[in-house]
C-alpha cells in the first residue's frame, strides 16, 4: 500500500508515517496542497490513499480535495480528511466534494487503523 500524507505539521506526518511504515506501507509526504500535487505528479502510480489535513498554508486541504476529484487520473485514489475541523458542515462539505472518510484530530492510532479498515485498507493485512 502507498499513502500520501499531506499536513503542514511535520510531527503529525511523522507519527502517521511511522505507523504506516511499520505496517509495510510506502509513504510520501507533503506540507501543503500545492506540494502534494507536485509530489503526485512525480510519482509513476497514484497512491492508494491521500490523508489530507484541512488547514494548511499555500493550498488548503479542501482546495486539494477539489483539485484531485476534478482530475480523472486520481479517481481511484481514496481521500481521507484528517483535520481539527470538527463541525458537521465541514464534514458534509468534504464528503460532498468526494472525500471517502473523515478523521477528526486528535485521534488515536487505533482510530486511524479503523478508519483505514473502513476503506478496505487493512493495516494488519
Amino acid at each position, binding site marked *: 500500500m502507498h499513502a500520501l500524507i499531506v499536513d503542514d505539521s511535520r510531527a503529525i506526518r511523522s507519527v502517521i508515517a511511522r505507523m504506516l511504515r511499520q505496517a509495510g506501507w510506502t509513504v510520501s509526504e507533503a506540507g501543503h496542497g500545492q506540494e502534494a500535487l507536485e509530489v503526485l505528479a512525480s510519482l509513476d502510480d497514484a497512491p492508494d490513499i491521500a490523508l489530507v489535513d484541512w488547514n494548511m498554508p499555500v493550498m488548503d486541504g479542501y482546495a486539494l480535495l477539489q483539485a484531485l476529484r476534478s482530475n480523472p487520473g486520481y479517481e481511484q485514489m481514496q481521500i481521507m480528511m484528517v483535520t481539527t475541523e470538527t*463541525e458537521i458542515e465541514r*464534514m458534509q462539505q468534504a464528503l460532498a466534494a468526494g472525500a471517502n472518510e473523515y478523521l477528526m484530530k486528535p485521534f488515536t492510532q487505533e482510530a486511524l487503523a479503523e478508519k483505514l*479498515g*473502513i476503506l478496505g485498507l487493512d493495516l494488519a493485512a
Partner: protein
Amino acid sequence: MAPALDPQDFNWLCTFLRTESALVIDESKEYLVTTRLHPVLKEFGIATLTDLIGRLRQRPLGKVHQRVIEAMTTNETSFFRDVHPFDTLRDEILPELARKRGAAPLNIWCAAASTGQEPYTIAMVLREKFPDVAARTKILCTDINQTVLERTKNGIYSQLEVNRGLPAPLLLKYFDRKGSEWQVKPELSRMIETRILNLAAPWVGIPPMDIVFIRNVLIYFDVETRRSIVGRIRKNMAMDGFLFVGGAETLLNIDNDLTRATAGRSTLYRRAA
C-alpha cells in the same frame, strides 16, 4: 504509574471480584488492576491502592465496591468493532430472520453492552439495510456496570469515541452534535432498552432472543461459569436464533447443544437441531 499491589492485597482483590462478579483476574492482569483502579482512587480521594483494598474489606458493600466492580468490568470498545460480525449480520443473518419472522418483532440481545457502541452499530446496520425490520426490533442491552449502561441509555459520545470505527456518513446521518459531543438520534435510541444484569447470576423476564451478542466477555469467567452463562443464554434463544462470540473465542467443550455456523469471518453459533 501506580505502584504494584502487595501480593496479599492483589489476591484478596481477585477473590473479591470473583465472588461479587465472577470476574477472573490472574497475576498477568495486575497492570489492568492498577490502571483501571486509578480513576477510582481519584474519585473517592483515596491515596493508595492499599488504602482502597482496606475500604473494600469493609462491609456492607457500598458505592466504592460498586465502582471497583464497574472499573474492572468495563471493556474498551468501538463502533463496528472487528467489522466481520456486522457484515455477517447484514448479509446473512438479518435476511434469513427477516424472511422467517415476517411482520413479527425481532429481539436482539447485547449481553455485555458496555457503553453502547455495539448495540448502536447493530441499530445502524438495521436502519441502513432493513428499515422495516428496524421499526419492529428491540435491542436489549444488559451489563453489570450501571455507569456504562447509563451511557448506553443516554447515547452521548465524545469525539474520540465517534472517531473509533464509525464511518463518517453514518456519523452525519445518525448523530447530532451536542456541544463537543455527539448524541445518537432518536431513530436509533428508541430501538434500545437497557437493563442491569449480572450474567453470572440467574435472570428472569428476558424474552426469547433471535440474535445474541456476547463478544469478548466470556474470557473473563472461569470454565464452569462460562458453561452456566452460555447454557442459560441458549435456553433464552429462539430455536433458530444466532449467538455471536468474539473472533478469538470458542464454545467448544463449553456447550455441546450449540453448533458453530460458518458465516464469513465471524464466529457464531446456532442451537443444535
